């Protein structure tokens, strides 16, 4: 009994404590300025549509098969939450919008239009702002593209995944390669130069040769942007179980590494420049919205399970928070109706926590992190100070995996494929530098 009581009391207390301590450290030091990250008057917006018609065998994402048509309630709640979060963040400009899911192309184009209107009503949304919609390449999806365009969408991201019908079946997709080609063509007609396709490698039974062939085929029909994903087996998915039971086998790590390298090579040859670990663009058609994640800009997350990163200025706070909305659509709907939003978790990011995200996300970019960019978040400690003296970093530079020069910090071509092996080293150095700096400042006392 006592214990239950204590936890009950402690729950919110810890929360308050954390907030408090991060503010105190901000106040004591001259770090106060850092806690308010740059461009806090701007943000991008992610809107999550949680429903799918069926479950893909590899997907463990937050999606639900709808029991009944609840487009009206969804519309109402998406609008309501957008409004609430916009007010809370007090941003004056939304730089881009991304409708993801789930299968957002299942939403009525009018729903998309209504959300965009809400954005425009409560903050600035310029004509040029990128508005992307994820599209399932089914005949139904394809037929709605024009309506989506009229609703305000100006970029389509199409989940082609594969051009092999057998593989699409194994993946549990509800389209075939014919549908995919038609959808891509239709999207290109509507939004030339602003269509992206998702393609997946490392699929069950796939060989390097067949992958190269398939990619060539795809590149001859696709537009200026390609996202390249390796199939990852997630626990709890049907595919995971099938592989566990030995019913299916996926290519080994060494094979998928070769697939990745050959895809990078092929894409480059065809004029698609890699700008991030999984993203390639021709004619400068990079995704502005996704770029803002890798640049650690602010973003609002609306919809069940959506994530956001922004400063809730509306509550008088100055530090950025990592926010997560309630996962289950029904619960989220109820919460939005009752409270205006379905924010389930708020974790204030410390100065160190924010810098860690800047580092981890920024190094995914082919251009890495420039000194100017780093300085926006860390005016006092530059990358040289933090990393140069480490022998491990020197080793990484000597082996040609990591580059730290006058431009900034970035991975080499070869290093990009090994980024996750380097990050723990870099994170430890960052942590050591920042905590040491804090201790020194605290030892000196308030100025």
């Amino acid at each position: 009994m006592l214990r239950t009581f204590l936890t009950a009391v402690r729950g919110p207390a810890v929360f308050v404590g954390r907030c408090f301590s991060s503010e105190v450290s901000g106040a004591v030091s001259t770090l106060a300025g850092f806690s308010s990250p740059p461009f806090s008057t701007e943000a991008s917006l992610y809107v999550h549509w949680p429903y799918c018609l069926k479950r893909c065998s590899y997907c463990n994402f937050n999606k639900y098969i709808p029991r009944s048509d609840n487009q009206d309630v969804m519309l109402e709640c998406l609008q309501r939450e957008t409004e609430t979060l916009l007010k809370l963040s007090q941003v004056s400009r939304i730089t881009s919008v991304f409708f993801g899911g789930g299968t957002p192309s299942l939403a009525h184009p009018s729903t998309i239009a209504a959300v965009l209107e809400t954005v425009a009503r409560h903050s600035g949304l310029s004509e040029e702002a990128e508005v992307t919609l994820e599209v399932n390449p089914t005949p139904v999806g394809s037929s709605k593209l024009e309506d989506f365009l009229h609703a305000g969408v100006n970029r389509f991201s199409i989940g082609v995944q594969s051009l092999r019908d057998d593989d699409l079946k194994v993946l549990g997709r509800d389209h075939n390669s014919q549908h995919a080609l038609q959808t891509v063509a239709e999207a290109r007609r509507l939004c030339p130069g602003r269509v992206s396709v998702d393609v997946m490698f490392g699929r069950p039974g796939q060989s390097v040769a067949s992958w190269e062939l398939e990619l060539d085929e795809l590149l001859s029909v696709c537009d200026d942007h390609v996202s390249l994903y390796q199939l990852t087996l997630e626990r709890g998915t049907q595919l995971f179980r099938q592989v566990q039971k030995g019913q299916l086998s996926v290519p080994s790590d060494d094979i998928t590494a070769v697939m990745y390298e050959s895809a990078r090579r092929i894409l480059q040859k065809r004029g698609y420049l890699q700008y991030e670990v999984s993203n390639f663009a021709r004619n400068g058609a990079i995704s502005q919205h996704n770029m803002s994640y890798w640049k650690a800009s602010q973003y609002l997350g609306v919809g069940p399970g959506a994530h956001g990163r922004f400063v809730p200025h509306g509550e008088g706070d100055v530090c950025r928070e990592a926010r997560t909305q309630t996962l289950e659509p029904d619960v989220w709907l109820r919460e939005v109706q009752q409270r205006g939003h379905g924010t389930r978790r708020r974790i204030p990011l410390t100065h160190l926590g924010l810098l860690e995200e800047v580092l981890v996300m920024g190094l995914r970019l082919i251009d890495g992190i420039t000194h100017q960019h780093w300085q926006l978040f860390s005016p006092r400690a530059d990358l040289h100070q933090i990393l140069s003296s480490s022998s491990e970093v020197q080793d990484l530079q000597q082996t040609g995996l990591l580059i730290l020069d006058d431009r900034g910090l970035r991975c080499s071509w070869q290093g990009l494929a090994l980024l996750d092996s380097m990050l723990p080293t870099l994170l430890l150095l960052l942590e050591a530098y920042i905590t040491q700096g804090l201790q020194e400042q605290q030892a000196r006392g308030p100025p």
Partner: protein
Amino acid sequence: MQLSLIKHHGCATPFLRHLLDFRVYQTRQRSQYCNIACTVIRHRWMKRAPVFCTHNTTNKMISTQADKESIDMSKFPVERIRNFSIIAHVDHGKSTLADRLLELTGAITTTDKNKQVLDKLQVERERGITVKAQTASLFYKYQGQTYLLNLIDTPGHVDFSYEVSRSISACQGVLLIVDANQGIQAQTVANFYLAFEAQLTIIPVINKIDLKNADPERVEKQIEKVFDIPTEECIRISAKLGTNVEQVLQEVVKRLPPPTFKKEDPFKALVFDSNFDHYRGVVANIALFGGYLSKGDRIISAYLGKSYEVNELGLLRPDEHPTDRLYAGQVGYVIAGMKEVKEAQIGDTLYHQKHLVEALPGFKPAKAMVFAGMYPTDQSDYSALRSALEKLTLNDSSVTVQRDSSLALGAGWRLGFLGLLHMEVFNQRLEQEYNASVIVTAPTVPYKAILSSAKLIKEHGKEEITIVNPAQFPDRSVVKEYLEPMVMGTIITPDDYIGKIMSICLNRRAVQKNMVYIDDHRVMMKYLFPLNEIVVDFYDLLKSMSSGYASFDYEDAGYQVAHVIKMDILLNGKPVEELTTIVHKDRAYSAGKAMCERLQDAIPRQMFEIAVQAAIGSKVIARETIKAYKKNVLAKCYGGDITRKMKLLKKQAEGKKKMRYIGTVQVPKDAFINVLKRKDK
């Protein structure tokens, strides 16, 4: 369990001892509470003491008649004294028989709950084995005369045979127990020879005749064949049901010779065991080989030449029962202000200050046969573990302790044990009685080297050195020859398994010395084994391939010249100190290969290729390769993935702090533990 002990025979025991038991019980709680618990208990004892006393005396009055306040020990001349031990293979019912004998003679009251009264340790009761010898003096009336029968219960496993041989030296005869169903087992043979070589009278007792499959006739024939004891001499009993147990006592009186010592001679006693009591110091168990000893006497330890005053002496029944005197031929305990177990050296001779006597030959000190590194699972538990080790070794002086440290496992010890069971029992006691969580490395054996380098001989002060830690292994160039410890193994098995067993023995470099049928279906085989070949998993293998029917026992068989070599394990050319092992030349390849394979599985892939090699000197004998990562980057990382991704990376970064670096190779500590630790059964 400790509490129930108090209840059942608390009446006959000084309460203090029970409180000690109780205190030990308390220390089993988490170590950080240890101090508090001790204080509380002591405090409670002060308050409770009178209550205990009253309880004690009232009970004593209604207790058995033989239990007089003070027994006049002069009433028991040597003619009416018999000193004997019970020896048996594990599980053949030795402790159950001891319980019955205690009940029959009124040393303990008869209840269902007397289960292995002499086995006081939790591990003893759980495993059904006796680890520590215990003594009980019994009064038995036979044909109008009261006899003093001193039962010295002995451990049943060969690891503890040094305890058996000590106990035997205080006896004139033994009861050799054999299970009526299982028949003679490997330890039966080992124990028989210990008694036989000491020229003791042996009474074979066939136990468990109440079992459905009991075949006492067959067992009698085995005994006749293997030990050359006529079948008529066997006593068939059921210790569990009490059948014929009385006869055992009668035969002890009739067949065993009385001791031949004289009370007119000067006082002379053998120290055959000792215990440590936190309040009273050392309690030494002694057998009087001449004269008598009284309270207040000044005695001298022949070993140390130190003199002590006798504060208390008496009988063990099995709890301490003070008397005024002990006479020649009798067995009991003495407390004489000895503060350390070392002062009551086992095998030492005690004599009167005024009458110098020739010291008894004593015993060879127990010799460690198996060594293993022991480290706290968490280094912050180091000092708690150290104090647990100290306490445990106080009562088990046969464990040798050396400080050791390993780069991978931190600070710890290298412990020497008498054998594998001894090691297991010790670990179990450490875990159970002290709640310590430890990592135990794979056991190794002590090798010897005969040095050839004059310089080294001078350095060591001798030509022959013993190598316990592979790090100290001297190079071939300065050594005349290496020696490895050998054991004579006895295997008794149904003949269906002979083929399989012979082939595993061959694989273990064993040489067959003998093979006889002990009855129509059972075979006894003798093999000379290198100890190293049996320390890790031989016994388990033998058991599993014989469906549990084969039994195995071994005895020390000295050292033999062996071509042993030091094998290094290298990661990208850098030696890993803690994985260096000493192996026989013929086994180097397979051992090296196994080690490399285990490491290959245990070390995660890194950004560069890692060569895992086993090497003898500069020659690589086995190699596995851990291929470099070609790709390690999350494919998809957008706004919704950051939180999860950061959590994962932070965890990896934390894990990196705990890595051990061999050159640039990161090795998780678990990897070493997996390679070093004994495989779980």
